[in-house]
């Protein structure tokens, strides 16, 4: 049997959830999907607007990345999601005329971010506003990057600070500096406790990963969120069902070991 032991049931779960998501991607083209409002994402417009009013820049950063994937030449899902939020902000900045800065710790994130923003600016007809020197790479070292971002934020006095990506220990340094210079902050994907107390808006857990679909307002992508919901309901019932069966003396937990 070439199937890896202990992973058969996992594969079944993966296939089931993927099936849900793919099905709802297809079905959503026919039926409307209503997604509950996520305040942090709805606030982005207002945050960029505030920066325009104050005449100070908008700043976006992803944090150090993950310990496993950050240094290995890979874009982890959290970074991809952060990038999707960033392109939305870039569009808002192009439309409203705010100055946009981005700082990086993960080198392989910089070229796609820069080119995506370049495309957005040219589609919005604001090509002259695009500045490649606003994309600042500090270093792949966690704290070297953090010091760089701190002094950047202090010298530029950013008005809106968007911390979306994979923030590790440096989270408190960035968020607290942002709070002391009076920036409006949106946080997502990181040490939630510190983001919770320093940021005005917070994206928790799955909210952060669905941000891209939510912001796109594309029916197919919104549909995939419904697929994820089916997945969650399945998890709840699977969990309840197996627990109750176990209580009744029927041990089905062996399926996890197949």
């Amino acid at each position, binding site marked *: 049997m070439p199937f890896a032991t202990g992973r058969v*049931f*996992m594969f079944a*779960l*993966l296939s089931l959830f993927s099936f849900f998501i793919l099905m709802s991607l297809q079905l959503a083209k026919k039926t409307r*999907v*209503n*997604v*509950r409002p996520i305040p942090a994402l709805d606030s982005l417009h207002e945050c960029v607007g505030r920066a325009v009013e104050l005449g100070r820049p908008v700043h976006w950063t992803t944090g150090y990345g993950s310990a*496993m*994937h950050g240094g290995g*030449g*890979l*874009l*982890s*899902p959290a*970074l*991809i999601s952060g990038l999707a939020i960033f392109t939305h902000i870039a569009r808002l900045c192009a439309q409203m005329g705010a100055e946009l800065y981005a700082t990086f710790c993960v080198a*392989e994130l910089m*070229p*796609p971010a*820069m*080119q995506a923003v370049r495309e957005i600016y040219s589609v919005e007809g604001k090509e002259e506003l695009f500045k490649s020197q606003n994309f600042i790479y*500090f*270093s*792949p*070292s966690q*704290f*070297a990057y953090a*010091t*760089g971002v701190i*002094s950047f934020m*202090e*010298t530029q006095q950013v008005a809106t600070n968007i911390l979306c990506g994979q923030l590790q*220990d440096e989270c408190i340094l960035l968020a607290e500096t942002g709070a002391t210079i009076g920036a409006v902050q949106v946080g997502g994907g990181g*040490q*939630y*406790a*510190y983001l919770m107390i320093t940021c005005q808006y917070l994206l*928790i857990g*799955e*909210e952060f990963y*669905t941000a891209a679909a939510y912001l796109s307002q594309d029916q197919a992508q*919104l549909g995939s969120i*419904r697929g*994820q*919901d089916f997945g*969650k*309901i399945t*998890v*709840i019932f*699977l*969990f*309840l069902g*197996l*627990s*109750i069966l*176990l*209580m009744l003396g029927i041990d089905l*937990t062996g399926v*996890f070991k197949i």
Partner: protein
Amino acid sequence: MNVEILIAGVCTLGVWSYLYKMNPVFRVFESIFIATAMGTSFAFALNYVITNAWYPLSKGNMIGLIPLLLGAMCFFTFVKKYRYLYRIPIAFCVGIGTALGMRGAIQVNLFDQIRATITPIIVSDPLNTFNNIIILFGFISVLTYFIFTIRQRTTSKTIMTLSNLGRYFMMAGFGCEVGQGFLTRMAYFNGRLQLLERTDAIYLIPIAIAIVIADFTLVRQRRGKASQDRA
């Protein structure tokens, strides 16, 4: 007197000077830090390329050419006409990164969690029964909080209550994050404090304090003069 310890002391005080305010000394150490960190990682990366891609290639292993070509494609970001070519190496990063993320998430975040959560809820020990029920409710309510597409206000009050309950569980979890992380942070702080106060670096502290006091009084005087001028 150990020169290296003195340098370490100067570095520490230089970084800590940020606590007083943003100042040139901190900027100098920040610049040194960024440069040395970048240099270290870049030298490491270059050596990796030389040993893992260049040596196999020079031995005649032609498959080593592919990653080098892919890597070289990254530089097309600087060429306007063929800029789209950099997307191919990026596609490698995205494809592998997403796939590793997906399979890791399914294994660690979902599969292992469900397996560990399934326990017979009612056991002989009443406290454990109580704990199991709390874990059950917590797990379900936190998951319910993340249900997006069922419109919560109109359809069901149960879902609404459950998802509110989920927020309280999250807050308790965030609190644990603060409490657990602070031990490591204090260890970092303790290491530097010991360096400054236990070794020869202690002679640097009065100098640092003197500089800060001098700066403080100077700024005050200047401010006083400015207000007098205005008056």
